[in-house]
């Protein structure tokens, strides 16, 4: 190896190193820091007696939106409100008594099972308890 080749090699390695040293922090900078998620295991969402029959509301369970439904018979259901297809927020349809996603016409039953349309998976279920007329939802994972 002559001197020219040697110096070219050293410069090349140095150049690549410099490029890496410049690109790596930029790429890392672009990845957002993990936000400290509020550690929620249960959530009070209001009084059972105030909740209308055949209606729903969406609440935030930590950072996850959860749809809570009181059906015609007065049974409570809580499901992850994020459609398993493309992340839209679902809604309860009083007429069909089903969970519906308006983005791509995905349909789930009241237990979160995907019935029709593009959703590939059911909605995650949350446990609902009523203690002293207070509705409490709990993650099934915890």
């Amino acid at each position, binding site marked *: 190896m002559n001197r020219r080749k040697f110096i070219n090699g050293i410069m090349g390695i140095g150049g690549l190193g410099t490029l890496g040293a410049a690109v790596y922090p930029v790429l890392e900078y672009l990845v*957002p820091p993990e936000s400290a998620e509020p550690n929620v295991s249960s959530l009070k969402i209001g009084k059972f007696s105030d909740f209308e029959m055949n209606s729903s509301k969406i609440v935030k369970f930590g950072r996850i939106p959860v749809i809570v439904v009181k059906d015609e018979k007065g049974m409570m259901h809580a499901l992850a409100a994020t459609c398993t297809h493309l992340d*839209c927020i679902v809604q309860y349809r009083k007429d069909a008594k089903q969970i519906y996603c308006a983005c791509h016409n995905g349909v789930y039953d009241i237990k979160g099972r995907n019935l029709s349309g593009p959703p590939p998976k059911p909605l995650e279920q949350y446990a609902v308890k009523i203690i002293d007329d207070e509705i409490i939802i709990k993650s099934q994972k915890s």
Partner: protein
Amino acid sequence: MNSFLDSKTFNWLDSRYNLDPIKKLILHKKVPVHKHTIWYYMGGVTLFLFMIQVFTGILLLMYYQPGESSAFESVRLIVTKVKFGWLIRNLHSWSANLMIFFAFVHMFSVFFTKAYEKPRELTWVSGFLLLVLGMAFGFSGYLLPWNELAFFATKVGTDIVGAVPFVGEELKLVLRGGQDVTGATLSRFFGIHAAILPAIFTLILIFHLLMVQRQGMSEPEFFKKLPENKKKYISFLPDFALRDFLLWLIVFYFLIFLALFFQWDLGLKADALAPAPQGIKPEWYFMFMFQSLKLLPPHIWFIEGETFGVLFFTFAGLVWMLVPFIKLKSEKFQKRNVIIITGIVVVAFIVGMTIYGYLE
């Protein structure tokens, strides 16, 4: 034109910077005249609309404030309180849509007249990249008013990015600035829309325009075969440029008409806990992809429907971009005009799916 070339100013500059290439362009550039000449004007119209985008975009920047609690409010201020704010926003939105429309027309006219063939392969590739960047402009700009429709369109759009194999989840995280679409996403989209995309777009645009000037207008096959005395040309300057300018004026009046009489709705402010509104639709130029994804079943073979859709459109886009490099070896295929038929199928698919999406 000649008087400009003889002027003192031009000579002063010429003696210092050697303006021969510009002189050559002014004196010698010619545009062929034939039954397809009209298509030569489409790129120019797209360029004109891009200039309007830059101008109105800069004006909107004077009042727009990105942020979860300020974006919607600042756009509302622009359209309700700022003098002619509504006009500037309408112009920006309408001209964006027209720009994408003319870019599509320009691309398909180049495709069907086979103007992408050697030696213009890189002009085609850069043009295709400009269209993709134009659509990225549309997608990122759509979120900036922080309204309900934009919020869900962005949720869906970024979730689709998440379906890309291997790097999808990371890309989604980087685009959203977190797990969900939040104010962090808005900040990133604003940066992408107002800084990153304009920078990349301008570079590729300069390359695209330089290629066009360097190689001149493409002549269709039938025109090339004409005997020299039957070939008609007009000079680029001033004849073609003046016609170009006239068409720009017509497009400008049409744009003003749209901006005056068809308001661009602001809608409701985005709410992360509200269900997606009924009849949510993306911008028309994403409709054919949106509709196709809607029709796909949850699973195709062993992969999820949306992943299949994303892979299909990415692959189709790549093939389309590389079309000038595809050589058909069999003469049978060449005679049957396989490329043209493919183009017709693509146009029919895009138009058909778009109409279907709106009728549903």
